């Protein structure tokens, strides 16, 4: 059992690399947390889009059809409230999309960073070096997968956001028409049609976004594996521990 030499430059390089990998991993975790927040905003938008429809025990496609079947045009008294809730959901997602775009940019930078890491060579323990190298390789793969998922998710959400924006606009027109005309409002079939068409378009996009969810679960599992590898390396380098 030989104590670790803390002044060894090779070991310092090892620690620098470990710190870099930790920072990259932390940023990955932060993006995952941001993605959770995006999912909440997306769910709120979905809930708003299929407001008033009760969930059923039917199969996926039947459920999807039910979920996205054109809802009855809301009563005039709830138009304003529904419009505002829709605007809130759309605005919430639009801010999250900006965050998602920022995340895509950072993951591109992180991919470049992990590839540029200088792998230490020399007298450091081979098991630690191997673990670090494995971790860096795994992180590179993870960031590549993350980049792909974030990009595709962003693309899907942009379309969903655009469709939901159309719904909000149509609801705005309905609310405006109602309030300008007062109680003498006559239901406008054309406006109702605009709302229905916008919601149906959102339905298609919703399904496309759904297909990404299993991919995200896989990504989460991989992230957990990376965490285990990190803990293993930390155990090696913890002060007071010794090399085997």
């Amino acid at each position: 059992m030989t104590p670790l030499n803390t002044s060894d430059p090779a070991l310092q390089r090892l620690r620098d690399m470990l710190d870099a990998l930790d920072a990259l991993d932390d940023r990955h975790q932060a993006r995952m947390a941001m993605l959770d927040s995006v999912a909440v905003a997306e769910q709120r938008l979905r809930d708003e889009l299929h407001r008033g429809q009760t969930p059923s025990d039917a199969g996926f496609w039947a459920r999807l059809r039910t979920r996205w079947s054109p809802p009855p045009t809301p009563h005039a008294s709830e138009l304003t409230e529904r419009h505002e809730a829709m605007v809130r959901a759309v605005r919430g997602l639009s801010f999250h999309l900006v965050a998602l775009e920022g995340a895509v940019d950072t993951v591109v930078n992180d991919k470049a960073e992990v590839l540029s890491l200088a792998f230490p060579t020399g007298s450091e323990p081979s098991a630690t070096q191997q673990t670090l190298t494995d971790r860096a390789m795994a992180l590179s793969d993870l960031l590549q997968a993350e980049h792909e998922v974030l990009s595709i998710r962003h693309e899907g959400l942009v379309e969903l956001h655009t469709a939901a924006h159309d719904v909000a606009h149509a609801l705005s027109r309905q609310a405006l028409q109602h309030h300008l005309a007062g109680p003498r409002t006559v239901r406008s079939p054309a406006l109702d049609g605009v709302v229905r068409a916008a919601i149906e378009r959102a339905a298609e996009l919703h399904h496309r976004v759904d297909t990404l969810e299993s991919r995200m679960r896989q990504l989460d599992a991989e992230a957990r594996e990376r965490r285990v590898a990190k803990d293993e390396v930390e155990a090696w380098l913890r002060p007071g521990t010794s090399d085997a």
Partner: protein
Amino acid sequence: MPDAPSTPHIAALCAALPALRLNHSFPPWRPIQAHLAALQLPVPGHPLIQAPDTAWPHPDAWLRVRVDGALADELLPVLRPLAAGGDARAKARVAYLEAIRTVVPLEEAVWQVRLIGHDTTHLRVEITLDQHILAAPILRRTTLRIATVQGGPITEQGHTLVLDPELERRIAEAAAAPARGVLRLSEWGEVESLTVGEVGPARNGLRGPWLSAVLTRVSESLDRTWVDDALLDSASGDALVELPRPDRPERLSRQRKWAVPRADVSAVRGWLAQRGSRNLHYTYRLPRDTP
């Protein structure tokens, strides 16, 4: 495409509000002014636009103040790390959200019920409903004076008077069509008066916006029905404002008033004369940098 109002334009509307000399029949103007002032905050990606054919900000802009203020606490933790990392778009949004979260937006509806008299059989109450329907936008106060039987649609719960939900619904609806509203409300008691005070919209003037407010009153105590609203077409004004039925004892009064820049006084006089209107007009001083 409506013209984009500049920040000085919004500042001018803020200056015009107090000049309208709004009394208690209108919604309080200070919260409206604070909400309007918040429209001066630049919203990243969303230039401020006007409602078509008016000098009034677009309904989406009014609504954004309330919506974004409510979202700020949720969004800031997501955007701050990106902003700290140097992301310019996130930085702009963080600055906006931090500013908008400090604004107290207009509430959608505020009810007040005040007991003004009672005997063994009846309650006399004054009910006010402030509505800020930003999707329109409609900024109005509805004041109903009504006498109802004890134990009727208005009940006492401790020190609070509670309205039957159906009565609330009818009061809210009455604001849009006061004459018919009084008719429907009279099923619930003896209506003394129904007053609706509405702020806006604004027109584009020569040197600044002309802000208006309109007061509609329906009561048996009025001598005659009288509508003078320069924003209604004088030829068909009566058709746009629903008047009390001839067999009813109520009369309706509807008057609009204006706040215009001092330099636009002769212009507004000419315009009102052209419209056959004698609407009151007050003046306000334009903020220094208004074009």
